[in-house]
């Protein structure tokens, strides 16, 4: 086990990746059900390996938003159903994370703009990082690997009327210069991608390709 020389606390092996590997990290926060999409990491890791030659760790990592370990993972995924209320430490960390070059990908697992997750997450993210505004559907993130000419791909939950019964045509983003620092989705990709990667073979169209775009964007922009 690796030990943090400064604090003398043990560092779990899962948080000490091999040099150069991309590790998919899921954010753990105090106020809600941060672990509501446990299969998303494996599914996206599978897709990254399937389509790219990027070195990637075979399992994801879980990292607390209030922890210094957050800065080991420049791309972090955050989802949930319940209200999001950052503690002071979480809010400060998220701000520093964004300022230093990190990217937070947030998805509303409720798919409900009237729901508590959306309202509270937008409030907390605005306070921590800055206002969220609509990302144009011509943004480079829609062509960093696969091409999505119409912007963010729709999800099944949107199409069958879950949540707010809307199909959201845009994602939201908070920027740092011309770089996305927070990418926010109302489209419930957590449900869309929340299945075992082996089941991908049953799908006519791989619905995780946009996830590959998000990861490639984070690694190259």
């Amino acid at each position, binding site marked *: 086990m690796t030990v943090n020389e400064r604090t003398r606390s043990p560092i779990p092996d899962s948080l000490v990746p091999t040099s150069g590997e991309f590790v998919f990290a899921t954010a753990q926060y105090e106020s809600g059900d941060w672990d509501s999409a446990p299969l998303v990491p494996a599914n996206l890791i599978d897709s990254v390996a399937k*389509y790219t030659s990027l070195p990637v760790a075979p399992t994801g990592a879980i990292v607390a938003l209030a922890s210094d370990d957050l800065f080991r993972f420049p791309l972090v995924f955050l989802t949930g159903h319940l209200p999001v209320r950052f503690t002071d430490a979480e809010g400060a960390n998220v701000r520093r994370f964004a300022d230093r070059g990190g990217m937070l990908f947030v998805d509303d697992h409720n798919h409900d703009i009237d729901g508590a997750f959306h309202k509270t997450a937008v409030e907390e993210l605005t306070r921590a990082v800055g206002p969220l505004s609509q990302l144009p559907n011509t943004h480079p993130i829609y062509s960093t690997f696969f091409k999505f000419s119409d912007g963010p791909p729709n999800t099944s939950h949107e199409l069958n009327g879950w949540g707010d019964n809307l199909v959201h045509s845009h994602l939201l983003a908070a920027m740092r210069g011309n770089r996305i620092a927070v990418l926010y989705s109302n489209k419930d990709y957590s449900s869309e991608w929340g299945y075992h990667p082996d089941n991908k073979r049953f799908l006519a169209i791989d619905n995780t390709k946009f996830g590959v775009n998000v990861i490639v964007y984070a690694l190259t922009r």
Partner: protein
Amino acid sequence: MRPLERVMRTRRALAATIATRAVLGAVATVLLTAAFLTTTLRAFGVATSSVWLVADVAGAVALAILARPWARLTVPRVALWIEERVPALQYALVTAVDPVGTASAAFLEREIDQVSWDREAARAMMRGLRWPALAAVGGLGALLLSVRVRTGSAAEHDRAIPSVIATPARDVSAPFARLAATVRSPAYAGGQVVRVESPASIGALVGSTVILEAPGSGEGVTVDAEDQPIPVQRAGAAWRTAVTVGARPTVIRLRQGSVERLVALEPRPDSVPIVRLLFPTRDTVVRAARGVLRLSAEAHDDIGLATAAFEYIVSSGEGESFKFKSGTLGARRIDAGRDATIGASLGLDQLALKPGDIVHLRAVARDGNNVSGPGAGASETRVLRVARAGEYDSIAVEAAPPSEGDKSAISQRMLIMLTEALEKRRPTLARETLLSESRQIARDETRLRKRVGDIIFQRLGNNPTGEEGRNPDDAPASDSTVPASDSARAALLRAASAATGNRDEILDFEGDETPVVAINRPLLEAYNAMWEAGRELEQGETGRALPPMRRALAAIQRARQAERIYLRGKPPAVVVDLARVRLTGKDHGAANTRLPRRPMDPAAARRAERLAAAIELASRNPAAAIDSIVLLRVESLDAAPQLGAALSDALAAMRSGRDATASLARARRIADGGVRDVGGVGAWSGVW
């Protein structure tokens, strides 16, 4: 004690008095000289760095003069001094201490012993110290007064009151020599008014109004801020112009002919309130949501609070289905006070909480900023959770993944999307193309139908092979006729038909429907509908295929809801077999280009150059250098606040005539990004 000894004692006291008097006199001289010179030199704008040197020299001279009597303190002189104040001695003392006259010494001693001169001597010594002491105190007061004298500045007492730094009138060119500023803070901050002559820099809340006025007709006077003109109005015997302090620092330029005057406007932002939730102090899990929860919080604002309240959100549900309700309590209006405490009680019974429900609580306060706000501050959130019944015999309960039926739902939705898209393109497609694409969707529908069939078969008879192992890519049957053999599949189809009401046949187990069949009824409906849809798609009838596809989807949805079972236990950790998966995707990405990031602070180098040029200019034209630094400072307040603060110190020194070398050097180091010490000369040079 003998007379000589008594005289010696008095002599020592006199020596101490002379020394004290000399010191007090010297101190008074130093202080008075310093006060006089400080006031005089400032009035003429001359540097005051040598004031103390001159004052010390004057004090030394005074000390030397006042200490002169020390040398004259001989015994006979002291005796004479005593005789002058005590006539009763009748010169006996002078005679007694005279070394020559010793014959009548004993007689004189007896006479002298009867007379005491201590009181008179002490009184005389105190009188001698009176004026020097008063002069020293007076000098100290004069010096303190001279240090506090400023020309027309307003001290900053709190954030709501504007602060103004002024320029001495002699430094200002004639048209604007009597410029005055009236600054009024916004109404919500109290509307305080500050008026000052000859303003150079004004710091005020965003939304404050600034009126600049000067005597004269205003003819030929132009005023602009960031190249935007501001109207100038005539007001009696004066002219005036009004500006509102915006969110960004700006410089107001006043011009008349070739004469220019700059006034910097520095906005002071109104901070949001700081709120602290005092009670509850931590998150809680309760078995039963009964009783009353006490809430308490405190809030503080730099200007004034307007409202404060507690907010709560109740989340009910689990898995994928949640409901939320929210509300406020304990709301209170605060009449512009800077600090407030709020309290409330949350009746848990009224919230009707059920096991598994979660209550998020926080306190929120808003200030009275009606210009750029109101600013809202919130406390940390506390969570109160009602435990589920099943939690008590387990430390951790984690949801298992959703059931297998979900895969079908996802795929059926995708097929509907594809079919709808094809239906939309139908008028523009050739028949062959339409048929080809429609049949592709039909094949996918068949594959999916077989999956649903497999699930049903497994549940009905634990037969994992489903429809006799048919390859999903094989062409399906050309029509919907059921297989002749009375296979499990046939039974399945009959059950499916019966479930959807399409046939009149009686199910084998109708009337005695098992729970398994009841649960699988939606899937049976879906199976049948998918069969219908596949048939239409084979014929290219996309429009007619959509209704049964949607029925199938609805049925699958119902099946999901009916069967949602979450088992206890951790979901299996999924480790992706990278070697197996690597680059097996059928689709390929496309090369693309990246846009460059912008430099962090492209203006930094230019700021450093401008500052260096301004410093060089200061030795030739101090007024122009001050103007340059004012402009640079205003631009730096947002982009480089540390530099802005350093330039502020430098400007204060330059305007008051003090030596600004140290503060300018510090500003320069900040503008340069610090001087990087590379260390020694080094063995490697990157310069060509």
